């Protein structure tokens, strides 16, 4: 397995510097928070960047898919599995979590595919504005369905993972944190392997680069795009599971703000670049947590949006994206 060092060195360098800076500034406790939050953002950002890479559409509804995922996971845990509190038996815990994860990811994947099939595919050749507006419509539909089913107030999610913490480098890290981050990293690596080494992954990459050429080479564009949406939604669903388990409460309008921040992360990392999306997610989480640490909680959102505007103005290709030379 050959590794092209030049291509790897930049993301690795940026990622390491980012993580070290975060740790230095935040201290162990908040660092763990930032990592978990970063995991959530990264998973969602991956979805944004994948979809954008392949159909050049910012899926406004993606944040709401994350939100629906969190509700789906909650529903599975409470209604289907009858859970209400921490599960102490490790084997049981692992099994239950796997079920919840798997079911949520698959369920959201199908929902994502469904949305693409009926709301976006017919508009693939329409003027740019049309799918953007449709996406906004879909976003509202999702939010309203959830708020009608579960009400507009925050909903509690059973915290099935015990909240025990262990001491580490002067602070306390929860098992939950570790689990979440490890899970996210595993998913991201799995994604990279899938995209890089499988036939379908190759189809995705070629479609993203040049759709017509890919079609001429025999790639089934519709299927490829559908799979992309499936994966993106599944990852967002995973993020939703983490959100529910970690924060303990979810709300129908969660998708809006989290989606916006995850999008910022995707842009920061370089839209279309999956590694960048992951790194971007952790950086944005850091910005948000740091703002809270400094005492400016309400301004944390403003801070994130400012990052977005700054990136788009000064370096629209993001940290790992390519510089385009065109000016119109």
């Amino acid at each position, binding site marked *: 397995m050959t590794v092209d060092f030049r291509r790897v060195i930049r993301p690795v360098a940026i990622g390491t510097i980012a993580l070290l800076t975060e740790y230095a500034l935040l201290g162990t406790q908040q660092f763990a928070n930032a990592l978990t939050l970063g995991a959530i953002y990264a998973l969602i950002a991956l979805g944004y960047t994948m979809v954008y890479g392949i159909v050049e559409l*910012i899926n406004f509804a993606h944040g709401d898919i994350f939100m629906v995922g969190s509700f789906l996971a909650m529903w599975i845990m409470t209604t289907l599995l009858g859970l209400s509190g921490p599960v102490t038996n490790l084997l049981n815990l692992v099994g239950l979590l796997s079920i919840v994860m798997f079911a949520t990811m698959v369920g959201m994947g199908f929902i994502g595919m469904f949305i693409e099939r009926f709301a976006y595919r017919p508009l693939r050749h*329409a003027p740019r504005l049309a799918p*953007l*507006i449709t996406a906004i*419509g879909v976003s509202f*539909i999702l939010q309203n369905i959830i708020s*009608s089913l579960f009400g507009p107030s925050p909903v509690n999610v059973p915290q099935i993972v015990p909240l025990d913490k262990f001491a580490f480098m002067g602070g306390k890290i929860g098992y939950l944190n570790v689990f979440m981050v490890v899970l996210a990293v595993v998913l991201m690596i799995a994604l990279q392997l899938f995209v890089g080494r499988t036939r379908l992954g190759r189809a995705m990459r070629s479609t993203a680069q040049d759709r017509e050429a890919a079609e001429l080479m025999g790639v089934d564009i519709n299927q490829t795009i559908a799979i992309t949406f499936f994966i993106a939604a599944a990852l967002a669903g995973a993020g939703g599971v983490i959100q529910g388990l970690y924060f303990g409460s979810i709300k129908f309008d969660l998708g809006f703000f989290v989606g916006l921040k995850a999008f910022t992360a995707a842009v920061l990392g370089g839209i279309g670049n999956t590694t960048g999306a992951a790194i971007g997610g952790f950086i944005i989480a850091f910005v948000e947590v740091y703002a809270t640490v400094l005492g400016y909680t*309400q301004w944390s959102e403003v801070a994130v949006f400012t990052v977005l*505007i700054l990136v788009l*103005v000064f370096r629209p290709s993001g940290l790992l994206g390519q510089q385009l030379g065109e000016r119109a």
Partner: protein
Amino acid sequence: MTTATSKRLPSPWGRLRARAHDHRSLTILAGWAIVASVLPVIVMIPPLSTFQPESLWIDGFANAGVFILLAMGLNVVVGLAGLLDLGYAAFFAIGSYAYAFGASPFTNLQIPFWPMLLVGAVVAATLGILLGAPTLRLRGDYLAIVTLGFGEIVPAVFLNASAFTLGTNGIGGIYKPEVFGFQFTLENPVPYYVAMVAILAITMVFLYRLQGSRLGRAWMAIREDELAAASSGINTITTKLLAFALGASTAGLAGVFATSKLTFVGPGQFGFQVSFTVLAMVVLGGMGNIWGVATGAFVIYTIQAVLLKELNQFFAVLHVPILQSIDFVQYQYLLYGVALVAMMLLRPEGLFPSSRRRQELHATSEDVADVPPPTEALGA
């Protein structure tokens, strides 16, 4: 701007249309005068008169006017220039707060209403330029997100800078307009109604003039093909900025009026719901078509403000099983969402599209007209 030489036979209707086109500004003003006079009469007829008393209707019309103004302004940005602005409510907020700062006990200033209209428009336009300057270079999708972010930042700033803006509680007791000594009151909606109609009519005249001008063509060119527009000499950035600024100024105008009527302003009034509603009005009404957008805005607002409540009451009174427990007012955004998606899939040009737009969006591949080749070769 088509040539004057038309091969159409002059039917009476055609002649009337031609004359209306030539004296467009007058037509617009006359049209508004007629509509404004007719509306209060129509609502005196049952069943409309049973929904609510006439003064409430007129009050509602005045409020609808605010949204019509907002929709017309956003139409310049989205419909004419093709820039997707998802944070339009921010400029509405700026106009509103500008008036609150200029005419309330909070700041102890009492600048008269009419100059404040101008001030609100200018301040909003300035902020539109400041926002647009760095961001209008971006591709459509990015611009949409940035404007969305801006639409969130502005109310957040108003919320958090409580020393200047009284935070969540907002600023109240704002002074109502006064014209030549005649004081507007909360009890009588008619002066507000008349003022709004005047503002709308004048704004519409201006917008139509812009659309048919060199600038309007430049906007259309940018919307059609930005690279070709730039290669024809159009400074795309300044042109887009102008669209942005004009749209923002209209929102500022609307903000001043709305605040002068509500006499209260608070950050909660300017969330994404507002931006989204106005966008829905523009899209559903027919992007690019000024009167279409105005009509769409009026229809949607009336549905939202009046009909949905009526539906609730209707089903409640009749004790219809499922329908009576649905709160239509709450579900309106779901309906908007569905309507938007359905519109984009089925009729993207909106309910009242310009013919140009309908052409644009229903293009088929065999569009080459069956025209015989030109027989006059040049000079040769």
